[in-house]
């Protein structure tokens, strides 16, 4: 099923995962963190982001289009792999499988998340602290959101590692190991930021 252009599509997929999708995720989690400073701080930050000039253009070209390509081509990649962690239970092989599992889960989570927030906003609802408080008052949704945030931070951190390898930045085993440690740190930091913000709504 592979095509001549797969090499370039794969490279584009790797690049878009970091710029802009990875950058957007980091920014999103950081803005969410305003929730730990209370309702007003969060609503102010949310209003600021929502009223940026050219906001529709920014949303489409920095978020939706790159995210959709990354998501749909990623699903194709995920389902062309034949996972074999039973045969090779190595760290990297587990990361390989988890990257695909979190990726597919994120397509579902993000679709739901966009429906619940951005599409509701387009239909007239107001996206603010209260809205998130209401959503997360349901323990099942809280668990779903925690799983979503952890999947996203994992997928980004591990994706940064494979970005470094895929573009030939980390080549020797030692450099790949060092990048592993850096990305594990990135995963931990982003996860703490993301979870703290979620718990601020509870």
């Amino acid at each position, binding site marked *: *099923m*592979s*095509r*001549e252009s*797969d*090499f*370039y*599509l*794969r*490279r584009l997929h790797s690049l878009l995962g970091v710029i802009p999708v990875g950058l957007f995720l980091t920014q999103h989690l950081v803005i969410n963190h305003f929730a730990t400073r209370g309702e007003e701080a969060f609503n102010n930050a949310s209003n600021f982001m929502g009223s940026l000039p050219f906001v529709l253009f920014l949303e489409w070209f920095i978020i939706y289009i790159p995210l959709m390509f990354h998501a749909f081509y990623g699903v194709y*990649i995920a*389902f*062309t*792999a*034949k*996972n*074999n962690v*039973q*045969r*090779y239970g*190595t760290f*990297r*092989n587990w*990361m*390989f*499988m988890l990257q695909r599992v979190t990726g597919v889960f994120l397509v579902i989570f993000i679709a739901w998340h966009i429906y619940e927030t951005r599409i509701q906003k387009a239909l007239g609802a107001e996206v603010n602290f209260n809205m998130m408080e209401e959503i997360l008052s349901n323990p099942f949704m809280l668990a779903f959101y925690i799983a979503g945030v952890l999947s996203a931070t994992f997928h980004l951190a591990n994706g940064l*590692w*494979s970005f470094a*390898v*895929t*573009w*030939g*930045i*980390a*080549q*020797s*085993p030692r450099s*790949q190991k060092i990048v592993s440690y850096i990305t594990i740190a990135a995963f931990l930091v982003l996860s703490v930021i993301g979870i703290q913000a979620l718990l601020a709504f509870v």
Partner: protein
Amino acid sequence: MTEQTTAVLEQQTAGKTVKFEIQRQDTPDSKPYMESFEIPYRPNMNVISALMEIRRNPVNAEGKKTTPVNWDMNCLEEVCGACSMVINGRPRQSCTALVDQLTQPIRLEPMRTFPVVRDLVVDREFMFDSLKRIKAWIPIDGTYDLGEGPRMPERKRQWAYELSKCMTCGVCLEACPNVNDKTNFIGPALLSQVRLFNSHPTGAMNKDERLETIMSDGGIGECGNSQNCVVACPKGIPLTTSIAAMNRATTVQMFKNFFGSDHMVD
């Protein structure tokens, strides 16, 4: 080992048997099935000598006469790659799979990444075709004597020798989650061969051609970095380092192709 100690070992292990579970397949299209065997133990036997014993006396564990198990072999010293099969779940060479080091029953299966010809015999043609695709050779022929090529530094030669140990056995393709019937991925071994031939001072004169091949269908883009290949390789070839090196080389090549360059081979 002296003849005397072998004789002693034979005496001590007389009556001992070895159990095998072998996945059989009569024709390329027929359904595979399992067959058990129990054969007399001999000291220091490997999987191949066990298969030879089954061939000598093709009787299965139920005592019924059966067809001899088919397998491929050639060098018997782990340099040709022909006898590769999946032994107790892991792809490896059967010549260096010593019975004393394996848990029983010893399970033998063909490497199903490749088309099965019969029993444990697979057709690795895909790899040989890929070697042709990537031009895994040093072109030295011309219409006149081209003379000596550039000199290769000795330390580089020693390093390249490690990459040249690849015997196209197919174990890394069997281990790779991205080599399967849904992709045309040529596999880790072949990407490392591109690095080997592109490192050679004469081979480097065509390095852009090899890079462009692995930037096309089934090339390096299909690698998903599970890094199973480097774990599986029986020759300890640094396959993932080769892949990362080729990732860097193809990144540069991609920009050269797009923007144009006067430095395609240097």
